[in-house]
């Protein structure tokens, strides 16, 4: 399939919360262009509107000014071609891991209308995905029976099951310990290499950004503006070894200096 050079485009986009005179500007005049299949990371101090950018792209929150264009169409309401994962796994506690992963297929077309008929096939797909993130044998466990890292793995599967063209990740590994987090970097990278969705990853872990992303955007404190754009050229697949290379450390150091805190 032909990859779009400008799959996600923000043009002077701003976003504000609250009503008329008590508006709080979260994002101010952001412009960026993301290629189809590109993995970008957005880093910055906390409260700089990073999560708001995801709301903008997903259509969960409308832009105050400017334009948000995804796949050639202006975003005005939630777009169903995206998958999301958050810092909390937000798995539904009354559903098993497998049923949680199946949830998007019960809602997103064209799967939803054929869900009953093709359930067997979908269950196989969900099992395959869970296996690929190392959750084979945990399909029937409930979320509260899984560790934090396992929950995030399941949450990634849920975000990917309907083969979204955009994956929006809001600090998905923020609540995990360092070792689990590094494991999941590798898991996410291999999922991305296999399926090649466009990914927007919000994080404040600079190593995470440099490990995973093709391009890193640094945001200013609130209201968020993009203050720098850095390409990351390290060869894929990257490994933990990559993160100890001097170039990698220099890259992370360079990013750190651009973050006003």
């Amino acid at each position, binding site marked *: 399939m032909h990859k779009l050079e400008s799959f996600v485009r923000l043009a002077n986009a701003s976003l504000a919360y609250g009503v008329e005179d008590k508006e709080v500007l979260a994002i101010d005049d952001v412009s960026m262009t993301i290629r189809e299949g590109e993995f970008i990371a957005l880093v910055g101090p906390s409260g700089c509107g990073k999560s708001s950018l995801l*709301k903008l792209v*997903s*259509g*969960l929150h409308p832009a105050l000014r400017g334009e948000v264009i995804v796949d050639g169409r202006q975003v005005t309401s*939630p*777009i*169903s071609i*995206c*998958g*999301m994962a*958050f810092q*909390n796994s*937000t798995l*539904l*506690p*009354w559903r098993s891991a497998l049923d949680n992963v199946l*949830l*998007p297929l*019960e*809602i*997103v077309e064209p799967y939803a209308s054929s869900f009953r008929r093709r359930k067997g096939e979908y269950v196989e797909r969900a099992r395959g995905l869970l296996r690929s993130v190392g959750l084979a044998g945990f399909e029937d466990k*409930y979320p*509260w029976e899984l560790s934090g890292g396992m929950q995030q793995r399941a949450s990634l599967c*849920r975000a990917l099951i*309907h083969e979204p063209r955009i994956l*929006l990740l809001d600090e998905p590994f923020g609540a995990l310990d360092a070792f689990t987090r590094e494991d999941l970097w590798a898991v996410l990278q291999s999922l991305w290499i296999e399926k090649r969705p466009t990914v927007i990853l919000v994080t404040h872990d600079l190593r995470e950004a440099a490990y995973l992303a093709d391009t890193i955007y640094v945001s200013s404190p609130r209201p968020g503006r993009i203050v720098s754009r850095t390409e990351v050229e390290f060869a894929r697949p990257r490994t933990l070894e990559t993160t100890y290379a001097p170039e990698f450390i220099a890259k992370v150091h360079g990013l750190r200096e651009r973050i006003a805190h």
Partner: protein
Amino acid sequence: MKPPPTFARPLPAKERTDRPRRAPLVSAPLVRRITPWLVTASFFILWEIVCVVFHVDTFILPKPSQIVVSLFQHYPAITANALQTLYTTLVGFALAVAVGLFLGMLVGAMPPVYNGIYPVMVGLNAIPKVAIVPILVIWFGIGTVPAIITAFVISFFPIMVNVATGLATIEPEMRDVLRSLGARRWQILRKVGIPRAMPYFFASLKVAVTLAFIGSIVAETVASDRGIGYLMIAASARFDITLVFAGLLVVALMGIAMYEVFAYVERRVTFWATRGNEMLT
């Protein structure tokens, strides 16, 4: 008193195994099971002892043994009236479940409705139910109907509030996950709202069913010719205090039985909510 069964949750497995082990005399589950019986038995034994030691007049406080005797003596009358009370309670409670569930969903899913309806509901709930029984008697006459309506009025409120709370407190992120998939409002309600409100709903049933008993009996004591409430009023008019206490005992037993039924249903249906500390109520 027994430990409140809903809110006593098992510790997460990890914490449990980490605790240092000591060989107990009696296994913990057995202790859990027999403690309520022991406490209840001690209560009645203490009562009996107090009555005997202080020579308490039967007219003031009958001994439990006398109450049990009275219970057997008046067995047919008590059974008939207890069934009447059970009937009005359950009919009123069933109405309360239907209306409470419906209003709770309406109110919980639509904040403007919540906003509009809430003061009226709180006001209605604040009215002492005994005060409305005379009005109900004027409308429907003495007997079964006022008891059913009082049971309904008193018990639908906690159901409505709990269901509304369950729906209104959905984590915004859960909602976002579904909205970002393009889910419609009713899909969010069906996939997240309703399942999430179920623990709140079942928790409220236990409370509501005991309240429904109170409603029925209040109505029966004020204006009825049937039911345990009527039986107690009639007995106290004859100064048969022992029979009054027998009636109270029967009411308490029915209350416990109904509570346990719904506690059991709750454990079965919403097992996922009784795991950690995530439930708010």
